[in-house]
């Protein structure tokens, strides 16, 4: 087994890992295909390369330049988002866009063109990448921006690591009044209420999303907690970051997620707040990265691992599709602790294969259970196809070639710019002839 796994620990593949510690070096030579590997926070097989080589970028973690006046940061591609925050927050800057974990690399964030709780206002991570260097296996180094090597720029953002190795990146940061978040937590009853809360909040609140009780059914379907937040006023002092970090110390022999723990947890989470609205000022960490306080939480799913299902549905079909999907999940009594629901905005990403679309996205985890998980996903896929949605490659380990090519018809343009020595388990799976 490789020490390089994806976050879901599924699928399990045999691959060799090598490390790159000098951005001026060529890519490692290999007879089999290679693939850049960040911090392995992708859930499925987009960061895996069965029978090939993954090239870890974790040692490419030097800063290059930070202009505290303009908020332009240049760093190597293996620098993680938490390291960027640690550096820039004291200077009054913040990441424009961040996913729900700070343990991802800048390179990985570009390759999946990740989104966060402020997609409705700020779009994806790629929208704020001024330029980067792309190292190809033939030794070529392409400086890519919207103006220079624009085709590679577009193909590399959300390009799943296939166009080459990003060696350094230049990001535009955002000025914030405070790193503290003034937030509201609103307990809501059903999906209609979720959509109206989103509509009402998306103008004035930078960050919005909801945790959904995926066990609730009937008229309660889609109930949950809607969270919205803004950077607080400069006068507000930053509450301390929570000190306690827990760790799941080892992988239990079986998954701790089953229909009983699931029901109990979802119910307790929904009922934890009695008032409809609760306001607070929070440190940005628990607000933006609630799961990061439990290290290695992916282990609770046991040795077989788990899969995440994340889809986006066009806005007009969103309500109906989410009702169907959540009904299927509740009926099956199968799902995860928490599902995340969020309305995406219409800010266009420069990325050719970017996942988000103006619409609504749902993400939730499922333990891998043989003969159950994948057939169940097929039912969800049918809803996504019927409602013109698509699935997020960063989270995927199951999408068929047929589905992928329908969701992302532009894939052939990426294929044309793919580095001939680079490939991934996912790419081989989803680009099969259909």
């Amino acid at each position, binding site marked *: 087994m490789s*020490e390089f796994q994806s976050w879901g620990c599924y699928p399990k593949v045999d691959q060799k890992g090598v*490390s790159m*510690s*000098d*951005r*001026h070096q060529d890519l490692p030579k290999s007879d089999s295909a290679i693939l850049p590997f960040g911090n392995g926070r992708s859930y499925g097989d987009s960061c895996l390369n069965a029978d090939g080589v993954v090239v870890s970028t974790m*040692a490419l973690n*030097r*800063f*290059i*330049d*930070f202009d505290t006046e303009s908020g332009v940061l240049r*760093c190597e591609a293996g620098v993680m988002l938490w390291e960027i925050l640690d*550096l820039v927050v004291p200077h009054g800057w913040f990441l424009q866009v961040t996913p729900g974990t700070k343990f991802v690399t800048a390179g990985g964030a570009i390759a999946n063109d990740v989104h966060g709780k402020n997609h409705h206002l700020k779009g994806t991570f790629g929208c704020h990448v001024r330029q980067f260097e792309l190292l190809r296996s033939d030794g070529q180094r392409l400086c890519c921006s919207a103006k220079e090597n624009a085709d590679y720029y577009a193909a590399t953002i959300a390009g799943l690591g296939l166009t080459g190795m990003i060696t350094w990146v230049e990001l535009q940061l955002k000025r914030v009044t405070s790193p503290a978040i003034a937030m509201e937590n609103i307990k809501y009853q059903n999906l209609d209420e979720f959509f109206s809360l989103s509509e009402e909040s998306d103008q004035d609140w930078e960050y919005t999303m909801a945790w959904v009780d995926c066990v609730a059914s009937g008229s309660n379907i889609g109930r949950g907690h809607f969270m919205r937040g803004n950077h607080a006023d400069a006068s507000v002092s930053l509450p301390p970051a929570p000190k306690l970090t827990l760790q799941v110390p080892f992988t239990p022999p079986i998954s701790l997620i089953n229909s009983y723990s699931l029901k109990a947890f979802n119910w307790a989470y929904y009922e934890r707040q009695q008032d409809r609205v609760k306001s607070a000022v929070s440190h940005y960490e628990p607000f933006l990265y609630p799961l990061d306080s439990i290290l290695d939480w992916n282990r609770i799913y046991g040795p077989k691992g788990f899969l995440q299902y994340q889809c986006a549905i066009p806005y007009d079909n969103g309500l109906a599709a989410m009702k169907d999907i959540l009904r299927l999940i509740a009926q099956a009594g199968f799902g995860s602790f928490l599902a995340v629901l969020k309305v995406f905005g219409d800010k266009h990403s420069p990325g050719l294969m970017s996942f988000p679309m103006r619409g609504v996205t749902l993400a939730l985890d499922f333990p891998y259970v043989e003969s159950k998980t994948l057939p169940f996903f097929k039912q969800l896929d049918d809803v996504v196809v019927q409602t013109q949605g698509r699935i997020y490659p960063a989270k995927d380990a199951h999408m068929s070639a047929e589905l992928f090519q329908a969701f992302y018809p532009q894939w052939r343009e990426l294929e044309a710019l793919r580095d001939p020595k680079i490939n991934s388990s996912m790419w081989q799976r989803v680009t099969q002839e259909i």
Partner: protein
Amino acid sequence: MQTIVIFGGCSAIAEQVARIYATRGAQLFLVDRNEQRLEDIAADLKVRGAEKVEYAVLDLTQTDRFDGCLEQINKALGGVIDVALIAHGTLPDQSACEQSVDKTLLEIQINAISTIALLTKLANQLEQRGAGTLAAISSVAGDRGRQSNYVYGAAKSMMTTFLEGLRNRLAKHNVHVLTIKPGFVDTPMTASFSKGPLWAKPEDVAAGIVNAIDKKRNVAYLPWFWRYIMLIIRHIPEFVFKRMGL
């Protein structure tokens, strides 16, 4: 503001030490042999908050160039060295050394002689000032000779003994001498080894080094459990030890 000079400043462990000092706003001077890497590390340390970073490119086996190098260092750091860390080193190919006197002596030159030459000069400067820390990265490998690694082990044990003597000499002059003994650390030096639970990360070892410097420790095993592992290994009787395949 603190001034730090690091020999082997591009070592993975030393780079992490330098980052800690950079965030404290220190002035740093790095010596190593790869210019591009020195430039990259210097840029990184400046972004992280170092007040000043300068470097010199030098093959540290060239002991005759140390005077010039020290002059450059003193000029950059205003004549005051608060902490000198010696971190350069190579991991010899033991079986190649067994077949070659030249290779063996070169490894001793890199891992022991060059360090001793540096320490000799630095000790006098710090003794005169009556302050500062001399820290050098030796290794648990110097605690006992083993068939798989005794050229390296011998060089490190020479370094350990030299440091011990120096500490004895400089203690009354208020100069702190620290012997650092890491166990297995995941760095480019050990890239080809398969890693297990005893392996530490360079950033954790670096935090231990800075802590040992701050607390003026004499000998730091890093991580700490190596002190006990080596205690056991040192106490295996030689008539048993010589038959073991270590």
